[in-house]
């Protein structure tokens, strides 16, 4: 006798079951929401931090002084040679007069440096890097460029940033992985708990001559629906929380040191990941949870 699979029936059974086991379904959805929120919030904080770090890095640079014997026009022409050096993102020419003006502005009111002759300053390039961790190598390479007399940088700061970024990245990855593992565990646990008192129901179904597949399908749909509902709820909550926290930060951050990424551009990706995770967790969790009960 061939089994007839009526997916409309399975879907409607799965859907019904959600209401029949109202509290259990509610609990499962809540757990899914909680776990997605935890993971989501984390990943978003990490993405923002990463973004901030790369912003800060963009401001990391060193200075290359040009030989005093080279006239200003020729010096300016060195820009192409310098930008050709690997890992140099951009070089910015600064004349000795500009440099003097900058310096004096920084030390304004400090009588010490007043009236230093402009000749002691030299033409220079501010050189911005792609990867701050290769600062030393790049500095050496720039020194090799004909016309560059000397370079000056603060390697400790660069190194500091690299270390902090690496560590922060590692901590974030570890936390997200732990949270993911914990969340999966929590959800699996919840679904197991929620289906625990359906052991008898399943046993009765099997006694009526139902095949395993026939018993399982409604659970799959139930899981999918719960996962979807959880994912969508988590998505909107995540959005709300993100916007609120972002607003709070902007309010606090009067000097706009921190730029919070806008949510919209990430929205679709977040929703996609949430829904996919919800589906996998919901359906997979239900099926795994009832597997043992099917041995009747």
């Amino acid at each position, binding site marked *: *006798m*061939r*089994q*007839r699979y*009526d997916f409309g*029936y399975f879907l409607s059974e799965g859907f019904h*079951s959600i209401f*029949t*086991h109202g509290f259990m379904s509610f609990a499962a959805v809540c757990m899914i929401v909680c776990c997605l929120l935890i993971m989501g919030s984390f990943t978003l904080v990490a993405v923002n931090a990463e973004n901030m770090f790369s912003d800060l890095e963009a401001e990391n640079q060193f200075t290359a002084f040009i030989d005093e014997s080279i006239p200003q026009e020729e010096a300016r022409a060195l820009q192409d040679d310098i930008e050709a050096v690997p890992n140099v993102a951009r070089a910015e020419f600064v004349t000795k007069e500009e440099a003097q003006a900058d310096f004096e502005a920084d030390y304004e009111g400090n009588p010490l440096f007043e009236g230093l002759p402009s000749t002691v300053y030299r033409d220079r390039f501010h050189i911005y890097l792609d990867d701050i961790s290769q600062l030393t190598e790049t500095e050496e390479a720039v020194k090799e460029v004909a016309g560059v007399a000397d370079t000056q940088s603060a390697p400790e700061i660069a190194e500091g940033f690299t270390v902090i970024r690496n560590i922060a990245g590692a901590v974030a990855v570890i936390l997200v992985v732990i949270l993911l593992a914990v969340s999966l565990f929590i959800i699996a646990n919840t679904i197991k708990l929620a289906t625990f008192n359906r052991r*008898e*129901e399943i*046993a*009765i*179904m*099997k*006694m*009526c*001559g*139902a*095949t*395993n597949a*026939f018993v399982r399908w409604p659970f799959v749909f139930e899981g999918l629906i719960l996962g979807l509902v959880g994912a969508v709820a988590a998505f909107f909550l995540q959005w709300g929380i993100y916007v609120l926290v972002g607003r709070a930060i902007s309010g606090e951050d009067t000097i706009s040191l921190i730029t919070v990424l806008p949510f919209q551009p990430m929205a679709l990706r977040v929703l996609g990941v949430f829904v996919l995770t919800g589906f996998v967790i919901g359906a997979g969790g239900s099926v795994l949870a009832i597997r043992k009960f099917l*041995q*009747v």
Partner: protein
Amino acid sequence: MIRLIDIQKSYDNGTKALKGVNLRIDDGEFVFLVGPSGSGKSTIIKLITAEIAPSGGRLMVNGYNLNNIRPRQVPFMRRTLGVIFQDFRLIEKKTVKENLTFAMRAVGASPREIRKRVPYVLELVGLDQKGDRMPSQLSGGEQQRVAIARALVNNPKMIIADEPTGNLDPMRSLEIMMLLERINELGTTLLVVTHEKELVNRFSKRVVAIENGRIISDETGGYYNNETTI
């Protein structure tokens, strides 16, 4: 057709519930299984439905050899049986109608068949008014009748009933028994566990008496073992 050959059953805690039972029930028979409380009647039923496995001996049910049946074959074997359990086993979260519908769906019946058959069977057991109730909203006897209805609903080859009238008043009991007799006359095999001496004596059928895990008598003709009766 059911065949038990030297069937032994020991439960996990060591209880020897059956100590070598030989029983053959041919297609179309009507058999009463009687015996004192704890003698092993439900154990025999559970063996036949493949709910538990025998510890020894050979067991055949409707052409399936339960000694080495593949797990995926079990549902198909069960579809040849309509079972009324001593503890009813209704799905608590489904209404009476849904319980019957589920049993029909599980064997692949079409929605049309279901719509025709369910009300008919409910009327047979006198529950046509209570199809939309949850099992918890029924009296003990009504729950038992739902269990009976579920066993009948798929028109199985064989009906196995474990005390189908324990919670019913004498008139209802008689009605149900007469219904089962009629079903039997249409060709369905029947195995009925019961304590009701009056019913057993009223229907002149084959009576198998079990005591302490052994069959102690097997005679035809409305006989309830005298030594154990009042």
